[in-house]
């Protein structure tokens, strides 16, 4: 393993992390809920009347964030290497996996670990481990 020092952005990473933490803090302290994105979104597929508005507002806030960012700075454009087939497979796995696993990077990784939940620690180790293994297979064994 070599460290890609030229890609390393500690200041931005830490600042962005603090913002993500702040969002999770606002959500639990104001609304009493876990800022788990797969859960907030997935709950819309089993809609309950009192739940729909805040779920839509949260997802809307996420989608609107680039628009707000653009008012203050040039938006960094995402680099997406995956092709259509890969994106479809990835989306299906992420959608099903996060619902069966009851959480994603935000719900288990940020909120669960902040709550010191053993269940979230196991989930986080599982998806991180699978992520590391998948990239190793795709990039270094299959050479894609």
């Amino acid at each position, binding site marked *: 393993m070599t460290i890609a020092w030229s890609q390393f952005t500690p200041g931005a990473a830490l*600042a962005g992390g603090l913002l993500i*933490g702040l969002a999770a803090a606002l959500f639990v302290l104001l609304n*009493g809920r876990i800022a788990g994105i797969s859960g907030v979104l997935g709950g819309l597929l089993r809609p309950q009347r009192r739940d729909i508005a805040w779920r839509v507002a949260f997802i809307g*806030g996420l989608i609107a*964030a680039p628009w707000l960012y653009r008012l203050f700075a040039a938006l960094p454009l995402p680099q997406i290497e995956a092709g259509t087939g890969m994106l479809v497979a*990835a989306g299906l796995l992420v959608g099903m*996996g996060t619902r069966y*696993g009851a959480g994603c990077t935000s719900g288990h990784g940020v909120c669960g670990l902040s709550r010191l939940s053993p269940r979230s620690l196991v989930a986080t180790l599982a998806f991180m481990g699978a992520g590391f293994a998948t990239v190793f297979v795709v990039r270094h064994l299959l050479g894609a």
Partner: protein
Amino acid sequence: MLVVLAAGLAGLVFGLGLIVSGMANPAKVLGFLDLGGAWDPSLALVMAGAIAVGLLAFRLAGPRSLSWLGEEMRMPKARDIDRRLVLGSLAFGIGWGLAGFCPGPGLVALGMGEGKALIFVGAMLAGMGLFELVERARGR
């Protein structure tokens, strides 16, 4: 009404954090997941920053029975570490490693008008819908 505004604010701040941190860029995420190549450790600091604030927030929230806006505290009750949790999380991790998108960044990239993010989010919603269909068929 305030609850809905607060949810929108939380989503907005969350999305800004994803953009600022680099998490909304799949190439950056894959650079972190690529331990066998030139490894970019940045995302470890994203988690560290988020959890530092989270630890404080959940410690404040823990003893409360109502939120600041008077909502019932809805903390997860599940404690069991079972096959669903582990297999689901493994499947999620594989999907994450394939494209470099997890749910939040997929939605933020959609907001940037990325066509590829639309494909990912569409497939993710289909995956979530499939889960609902299977669960309903099993009577859960």
